[in-house]
């Protein structure tokens, strides 16, 4: 062990207690040695600082690409919490004002509801008549006018219909049935002071079904894919990839599902930079990476290329291309159906049995 190694071992606490004590003694007696140790320590500290700087840069880069705000269910304002309080107070005041308005009117306007079929006695539904959606507070105000001259009938007070006072928001909701049923004309109730329905609840059943179908197709595709993916990382010292360090490195990344890191390396690999047989493997890796990242259209393109490069891989390329199309079946159904039929009709296609099963699944 030369002096440099010994100094480093001392600083990294790799010496035994006795060796460390002896070395400290030497240092105390020799100022030049002490200076050397100090320099080494500074050098190691600089190394740490460089590494730390790299980590921080990486974290900042990731933070910029994937904002933390997305992680929380609700956005949390980083500033002006008082604004939230003031808005809350205002909303409360408006609500109180609304309730008082209803209560104040009731004794005066409380008249028996006429048992009549005279439609002229009823107030027009101002909300529909104008053909234009009014803010909710305005529609409430329009439906609660001062008593109409010469008209014995007033708008039925739905809050009292059941003999029980309903909360304001419920009474408004009762007076707005058409609005709630038809989401295409639903005003942005979130902006109105008396919040009725969150917009997300107004998503139609049709849209939900569409989303569920999309997920189901992707699920069908992924289940079939994961059983037997086009590329399975095999860290094999004697394999096609082993002779190329860069490809072996990429293979390690894929082995640990680090697709985001592997993708740019795969994308920049050209036919000239690797052997032809390796380039075919690169196409499989690329298709696998795209597929795993949910970029099915790109995966399908890589598979097309694979089919052109290698006749031996044509059947594989077709099957996995089909899975890519099925993952986006809503958008690419005709293409997927055509390819499925091609596979089914081709004699001795290695994926015929799987294709039959897939067809049945899609029918369901």
């Amino acid at each position, binding site marked *: 062990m030369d002096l440099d190694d010994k100094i480093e071992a001392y600083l990294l606490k790799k010496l035994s207690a006795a060796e460390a004590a002896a070395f400290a003694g030497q240092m105390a007696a020799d100022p030049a040695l002490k200076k050397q140790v100090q320099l080494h320590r500074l050098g190691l500290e600089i190394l*740490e*600082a*460089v*590494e730390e700087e790299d*980590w*921080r840069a990486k974290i900042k880069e990731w933070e910029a690409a994937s904002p*933390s705000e997305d992680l929380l269910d609700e956005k949390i304002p*980083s500033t002006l919490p008082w604004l939230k309080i003031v808005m809350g107070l205002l909303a409360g005041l408006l609500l109180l004002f609304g309730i008082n308005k209803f209560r104040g009117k009731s004794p005066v306007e409380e008249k028996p509801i006429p048992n009549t079929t005279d439609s002229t006695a009823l107030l027009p539904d101002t909300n529909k008549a104008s053909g234009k959606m009014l803010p909710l507070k305005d529609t409430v105000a329009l439906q609660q006018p001062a008593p109409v001259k010469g008209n014995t009938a007033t708008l039925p007070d739905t809050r009292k219909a059941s003999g029980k006072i309903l909360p304001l928001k419920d009474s408004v909701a009762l007076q707005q049935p058409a609005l709630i049923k038809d989401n295409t004309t639903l005003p942005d109730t979130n902006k109105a002071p008396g919040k009725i329905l969150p917009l997300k609840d107004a998503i139609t059943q049709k849209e939900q079904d569409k989303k569920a179908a999309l997920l189901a197709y992707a699920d069908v595709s992924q289940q079939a894919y994961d059983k037997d993916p086009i590329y399975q990382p095999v860290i094999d010292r004697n394999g096609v990839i082993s002779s190329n*360090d860069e490809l072996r490195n990429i293979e390690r990344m894929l082995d640990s599902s*680090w697709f985001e890191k592997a993708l740019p390396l795969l994308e920049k690999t050209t036919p000239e930079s690797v052997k032809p047989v390796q380039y075919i493997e690169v196409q499989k890796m690329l298709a696998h990476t795209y597929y795993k990242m949910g970029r099915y259209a790109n995966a399908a393109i890589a598979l097309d290329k694979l089919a052109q490069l290698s006749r031996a891989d044509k059947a594989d390329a077709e099957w996995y291309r089909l899975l890519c199309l099925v993952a986006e079946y809503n958008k690419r159904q005709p293409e997927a159906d055509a390819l499925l039929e091609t596979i089914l009709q081709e004699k001795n296609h290695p994926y015929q049995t799987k294709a039959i099963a897939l067809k049945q699944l899609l029918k369901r």
Partner: protein
Amino acid sequence: MKQHRKWTDEEILNTFYASVEGRERMLYYIFHESGWRKQVIKFVVENSGTMEDAKDIMQEALVGFLKSLTNGKYEGQGALQGYFFGIAKHKWHDELEKRKKRVKTNTLTDKNDVRQNNPSEDNADKRLLEEDRRKLLIEVVKKLGYERCLRLRLEAGAGATGEELARRFGFKDPDKVKKFKSDCWKSFLKELENFPDLENLLLEEFDGLIQWKKWT
């Protein structure tokens, strides 16, 4: 959000100690896939912090965690997630202390009184000084121009083989890597010795505790 497979503590540590890529991969896993980031952000935000505070604490906690792994401070004491979260909580506690102290400092005329009265509140100050020092050291590297040498040494320290280092740093012969590593380090230390502000950079050792001169 896409669900990722949870790594075991063993996988996390093995990936970290495998190579430089392994370190980055592990960092990526913790940041993006583990759910630890969400836990830290939620904690800070729910304990009177803002989103900006949460981001800072996440970064500090990650760096602290990685340092614990590199210098062997973590010796398997409990699950890694708990250990990491402990670091984050500690960092946030320090930050809150620093803020409290800042308020007190504004009300006192003699700043020294604060330090004398509250010696336990110096952690936050220490962190600031450490940050200053790190920036200063990076400046030194930039001035001296030994980045390649230092990176090679870092990668060697992270477990890269001679062949890997030769490929990455453009050496035809892996044997030359070893010689370069030793020679450039010696040369770097020599340059440091002649650095004009060396006295300000050197650390002092008192009773086994290493301290920065500026701090003492």
